[in-house]
């Protein structure tokens, strides 16, 4: 009995000794020669299973590297709005801007960017910015719309080493035409986009893929001239459909009085137009008015060599437009820096005007029976002429507090090719509390008087918005 016990113990001891031996052997490779003898392995590792490879080694990894130093600056912009209006969340589109005479009533489909009554999560922007190398900087802005869907809002590179005052930008970016167009929603002084920009360009403004070249000459006053070659996909000025057969879903009177749902594919008769389809130019001038005052005046314009649009109706009737268009405008910005704390006494005045003209061939009809491939013919020509302007003023009435007023008017010129309409107005007032550069809270009230398409009357509405705008992480400073 005792012998057997001794035997077991001896085996355990042997195994233990072998274990510590192997640990000691393993350490020879890591420690300088000779130290192993002076420091017995058993003293360092009392547990034979505690092998050195499993221990956290602290910072001495035997490796020198940049780690996360090359990571881009990352920031997240949170933007939420509590919204209320007196039209049950159904604000109409101003007359003449609904996309053609024959386009009646948006129904209850919510246009992009339209807010629901109650709490809204607007775009959550994730911004990455870094130098690519010594020739290029890059910025990527991802927008998470509401609760779902990620959109690449901007993804571009800018040169940093071109000579003679030239700079090139390429990728997807917000165009530099006008003033507010290149700003992200969190840069705005108001909760919403000016009507001019929203209705003449689209819900995202002029945001396109392409190339921009701009030039700043070495003059005593600031001048910037630029041209952009863009793909041409912006709904307001360069809408694109292309050829190919599209699916139409319609209803026809079926047997027994119940409508049959029909589904067919047809060709709208629109041709493919290779990109780039949109060309823009801009010029900005700013005299040197010293430290307190800053004024910048800009002119801009653009030509779209293709504008195509299609409207399908449940009866099977299709409307299609095919043509080209151009736009032109001017932007004015004045800022006064009072030099007091946190924007107290500062003024920001801003105004823009823009005119858009689309020359379109128009088709209306049932493009073909089920399975038909015949192309429709475009019979009529129509010219849509629209314009719009806004003027806004923001004054810092106390440290961190500012108040703003804005007047929007669209449709001073307002003809959709068939009819002329009166203009639509919107008046906005807000108060903004900027706790720090990183958090901002804003209360805004809009009162609108929009001309309506069908009865040529107008409708009034009121909107109230309470917004938070937060910036998290390392966010680059904004340009002028």
């Amino acid at each position, binding site marked *: 009995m005792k012998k057997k016990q001794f035997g077991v113990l001896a085996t355990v001891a042997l195994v233990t000794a072998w274990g510590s031996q192997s640990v000691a052997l393993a350490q020879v490779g890591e420690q300088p020669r000779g130290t192993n003898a002076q420091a017995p392995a058993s003293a360092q590792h009392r547990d034979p299973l505690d092998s050195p490879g499993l221990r956290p080694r602290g910072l001495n990894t035997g490796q020198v590297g940049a780690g996360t130093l090359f990571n881009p600056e990352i920031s997240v912009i949170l933007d939420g709005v509590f919204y209320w209006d007196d039209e049950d969340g159904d604000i109409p589109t101003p007359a003449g801007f609904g996309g053609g005479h024959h386009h009646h009533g948006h129904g209850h489909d919510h246009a992009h960017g339209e807010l629901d009554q109650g709490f809204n999560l607007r775009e959550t922007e994730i911004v990455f910015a870094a130098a690519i190398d*010594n020739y290029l*900087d890059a910025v990527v802005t991802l927008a998470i719309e509401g609760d779902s869907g990620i959109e690449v809002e901007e993804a571009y590179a*800018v040169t*940093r*080493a*071109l*000579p*003679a*005052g*030239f*700079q090139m930008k390429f990728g997807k970016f917000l165009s530099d035409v006008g003033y507010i167009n290149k700003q992200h929603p969190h840069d705005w002084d108001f909760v919403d986009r000016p009507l001019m920009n929203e209705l003449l360009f689209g819900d995202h403004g002029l945001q396109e893929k392409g190339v921009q070249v*701009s*030039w*700043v*000459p*070495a*003059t*005593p*006053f*600031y*001048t*910037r001239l630029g041209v952009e070659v863009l793909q041409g996909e912006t709904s307001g000025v360069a809408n694109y459909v292309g050829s190919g057969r599209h699916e139409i879903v319609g209803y026809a009177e079926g047997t027994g009085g119940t409508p049959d749902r029909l589904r067919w594919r047809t060709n709208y008769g629109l041709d493919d137009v290779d990109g780039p389809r949109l060309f823009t130019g801009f010029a*900005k001038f*700013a005299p*040197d*008015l*010293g*430290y307190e005052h*800053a004024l*910048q005046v800009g002119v801009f314009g653009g030509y779209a060599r293709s504008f195509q649009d299609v409207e399908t109706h449940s009866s099977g009737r299709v409307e299609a437009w095919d043509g080209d268009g151009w736009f032109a405008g001017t932007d004015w910005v004045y*800022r006064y*820096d009072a*030099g007091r*704390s*946190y924007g107290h006494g500062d003024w920001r005045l801003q105004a823009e005007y823009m005119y858009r003209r689309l020359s379109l061939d128009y088709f209306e009809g049932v493009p073909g029976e089920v399975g038909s491939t015949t192309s429709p013919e475009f019979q009529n020509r129509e010219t849509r002429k629209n314009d719009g302007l806004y003027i806004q003023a923001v004054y810092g009435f106390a440290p961190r507090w500012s108040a703003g007023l804005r007047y929007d008017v669209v449709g001073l010129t307002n003809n959709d090719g068939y009819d002329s309409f009166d203009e639509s107005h919107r008046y906005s007032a807000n108060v903004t509390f900027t706790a*720090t*550069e*990183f958090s901002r809270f804003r209360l805004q009230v809009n009162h609108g008087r929009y001309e309506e398409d069908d009865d040529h009357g107008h409708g009034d509405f009121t909107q109230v918005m309470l917004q938070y705008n937060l910036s998290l992480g390392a966010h*680059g*400073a*904004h*340009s*002028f």
Partner: protein
Amino acid sequence: MKRLLLALLLLIVSGAAQAALNVVATTPNMGMLARTVAGEHADVRILAPADRDAHYLQVRPNMMAALRRADLVVSVGAELEIGWLPPAIQGAHNPRIQPGQRGYFEAAAQVDLMDAHGVADRSLGDVHPAGNPHIYFDPVRMAEAGEALAERLASMDEANADAYRANARASPNRCENICPRGKLSLKARQGPCCIIRTPII
């Protein structure tokens, strides 16, 4: 049209042919540093007036116009001007003054900064995680920055290299010039200003 182009060309060429260096300083104290070291060999223009808080400035077109023509921008650095200098440099379309180039000078990068690499969290307020950028309160650090600036100017304008170095040595920021030599312990400097924190007489 031809005449206009010629005039434009002359304007560009004359801009480049100016003898003096075109230096743009972000703040009045950096302007003082640049004027002290460069002397008559540079035209120094200051972007932010003395009564403005350089932390809260916003970029303006006249900043970009000034930076467009600059050979050298002298900034405090350590992210003090982060709210306006980076977009001003990007809008200036001037490759000479891009960070990393010879025409970009940060005074804070030339000296040891206090309170560097501490805990940084925006709930702590406007902290400077890269270290305290307010080196212009410290004559010793300003003198060091002045010497670094002299070397930078010397590398850009070798003809006047000796003048820049001599100006930096004679800088009124140097502690020896403020207090007689031997009465001030430079070894014990730890605070933002050696005169305040180490009154050894």
